[in-house]
C-alpha cells in the first residue's frame, strides 16, 4: 500500500477497522477522542460489523468491555488520563478475569491542576493492574502495536488485557506518513478470536467474577503472576511474525548505538525517538553515548535491560511521570534490574516533560552531559523553572 498521512489516533482506528472487533466501547476523552470518532465513522459506513456501544463513562466503558469479553467477544476501547483513572477498579477486574481486552491509551497528565497534554502519569499509575503495557514511539508504532496487541493478549497461553500506549497530542494528533498493511493480511495475522468459557455458551454455564475468599484469592493472583511470566516470549514471537508480514520489527527494549557506549539514556514513548537523534549528534562529536527505548513496561524486561546496560559507566532513566515522595516510576525498576548486573553502572533519574512540557534536543544533551561529567543528582528535574 502507498504511504498515507494519518495521525496516531486515526492510525489506531484504522488498525481496529482492519481487525474488525466484535465490540468497541466508546467514551470520548482528549486526546483519544479521534480514535472512537474515526471508528464510529467506519461503523456508520458499514466498513466493520462491530457492535459500537457509547458508554456514559469510562468506568462503564471498561465494564462493558469486560461483559462483552466474558460473553466471548473480541473487544477494545480507548482512553486517556482521568478516563483511565476512572477505569481503575475495572482494570483490575479485566486482568484478573483473564479477558484479552485491547485498550489504546493516549498518554495524558493527571489532574490537578487540569492539564490535557502528554505525560505518563496515567498509565504508570495503572502499572499494577495486571495489564500488559506496550509503549509506542510514533503513529506508525501505535498502528503496529494495535494490531500485534490482539495477537499477544489473545494468545492461548496468555489471555491478558493489553494496553497500547502512545503520547497524547505528540503522537495522537501529529500527522505522519504511515505504511499500512492490507486488510486481509491483518485479518489473517490476528486470526479468529477464540472465546474461552464464554458466557453466551448456554450449554456450558459459567459464573464470572465470583466472590474470592482468602482460600482461593492468592492462587488466582499467582495465576496472573505466571501468565505475566509467559508474556515476554509471546510478545517477541508476535513481533517476529509481524516483522515477516510488515518488514518492521519491534523488540522488547531497543538499544541504539549502545554496544560501545559508556553513557546511556532510557526513555519510553516519543522521547525515545528524540534521544536517538541526540545520540547521533553527540556521536558526531566523538562522545560514546547511546540510548535505549523501553517498549514493553509490563511485564518489566529486567533481563533485557541487564543485557543492554551491564558494564556501562552511567545510565539516565527519563521519567515522564512522578511518584511523589519517591522518584519517577521507571527509575527504581531499572535500577533494581541493574542491581543484579555483574558490573553495575551508576543510575540516575531525570523527571521531564510533565503536563506536556516540551523536551528539547539541548535539554537531552544536558542529560548526557550530566552523565559524562558526573554533575547530576540522583533525581534531576529537566526543564522545570527552579
Amino acid at each position, binding site marked *: 500500500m502507498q504511504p498515507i498521512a494519518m495521525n496516531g489516533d486515526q492510525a489506531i482506528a484504522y488498525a481496529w477497522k482492519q481487525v474488525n472487533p466484535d465490540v468497541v466501547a466508546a467514551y470520548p476523552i482528549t486526546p483519544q477522542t479521534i480514535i472512537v470518532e474515526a471508528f464510529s465513522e467506519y461503523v456508520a459506513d458499514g466498513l466493520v460489523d462491530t457492535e459500537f456501544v457509547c458508554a456514559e463513562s469510562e468506568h462503564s466503558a471498561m465494564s462493558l468491555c469486560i461483559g462483552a469479553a466474558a460473553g466471548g467477544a473480541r473487544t477494545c476501547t480507548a482512553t486517556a488520563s482521568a478516563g483511565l483513572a476512572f477505569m481503575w477498579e475495572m482494570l483490575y477486574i479485566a486482568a*484478573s*478475569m*483473564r*479477558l484479552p481486552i485491547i485498550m489504546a491509551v493516549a498518554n495524558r497528565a493527571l489532574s490537578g491542576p487540569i492539564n490535557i497534554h502528554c505525560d505518563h502519569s496515567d498509565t504508570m499509575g495503572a502499572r499494577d493492574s495486571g495489564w500488559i503495557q506496550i509503549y509506542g514511539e510514533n503513529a506508525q508504532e501505535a498502528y503496529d502495536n494495535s494490531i500485534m496487541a490482539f495477537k499477544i493478549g489473545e494468545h492461548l497461553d496468555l*489471555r491478558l488485557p493489553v494496553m497500547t500506549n502512545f503520547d497524547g497530542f505528540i503522537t495522537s494528533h501529529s500527522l505522519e506518513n504511515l505504511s499500512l498493511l492490507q486488510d486481509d493480511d491483518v485479518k489473517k495475522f490476528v486470526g479468529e478470536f477464540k472465546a*474461552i*468459557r464464554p458466557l453466551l455458551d448456554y450449554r*456450558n*454455564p*459459567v*459464573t*464470572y*467474577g*465470583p466472590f*474470592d475468599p482468602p*482460600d*482461593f484469592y492468592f*492462587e*488466582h493472583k*499467582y*495465576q496472573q503472576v*505466571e*501468565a505475566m511470566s509467559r508474556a515476554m516470549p509471546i510478545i517477541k514471537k508476535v513481533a517476529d511474525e509481524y516483522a515477516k508480514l510488515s518488514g518492521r520489527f519491534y523488540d522488547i527494549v531497543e538499544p541504539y548505538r549502545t554496544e560501545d557506549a559508556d553513557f546511556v539514556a532510557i526513555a519510553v514513548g516519543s522521547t525515545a525517538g528524540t534521544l536517538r537523534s541526540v545520540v547521533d549528534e553527540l556521536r558526531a562529536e566523538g562522545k560514546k553515548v547511546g540510548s535505549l527505548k523501553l517498549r514493553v513496561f509490563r511485564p518489566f524486561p529486567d533481563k533485557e535491560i541487564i543485557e543492554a546496560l551491564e558494564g556501562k559507566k552511567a545510565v539516565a532513566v527519563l521519567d515522564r511521570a512522578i511518584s511523589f515522595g519517591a522518584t519517577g516510576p521507571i527509575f527504581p525498576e531499572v535500577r533494581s534490574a541493574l542491581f543484579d548486573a555483574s558490573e553495575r553502572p551508576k543510575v540516575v533519574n531525570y523527571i521531564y516533560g510533565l503536563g506536556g512540557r516540551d523536551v528539547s534536543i539541548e535539554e537531552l544533551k544536558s542529560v548526557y552531559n550530566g552523565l559524562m561529567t558526573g554533575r547530576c543528582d540522583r533525581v534531576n528535574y529537566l526543564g522545570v523553572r527552579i
Partner: protein
Amino acid sequence: MSDPEKKYKDYPEGGVIDEAGSARKYKTGDWRSQKPEVDKEKCINCLWCWVYCPDNSILVEEGKMVGFRYSHCKGCGICAAECPKKAITMKKEGN
C-alpha cells in the same frame, strides 16, 4: 472450601466457576456467631420461620419444622424474631 491438595493450576483461570449450582458446596454457616434453637414443645409448625428465613436454612419434613440447616444458617435471628410462639431462641455459637 478450598482443598489443600489442589494447587493454583487446578483452579479455572480468572476465578471462573464452571459448574452450575456450586454455591451449595460453599458452607456459609461458619460465619455465624449466634445459632437458633427450637423448642418443639412450643412449635406449632406454622412454618413462619421457613417463610422468613433468607437463607433456606429451615428444615421441613412432611410439613413439619424439624430443625435448621446449620451449614448455611448465618445466625441472623429472623426466625426467632418472627416465631409467633417464641419457640426459637438464639444462643451464642460454640456454647
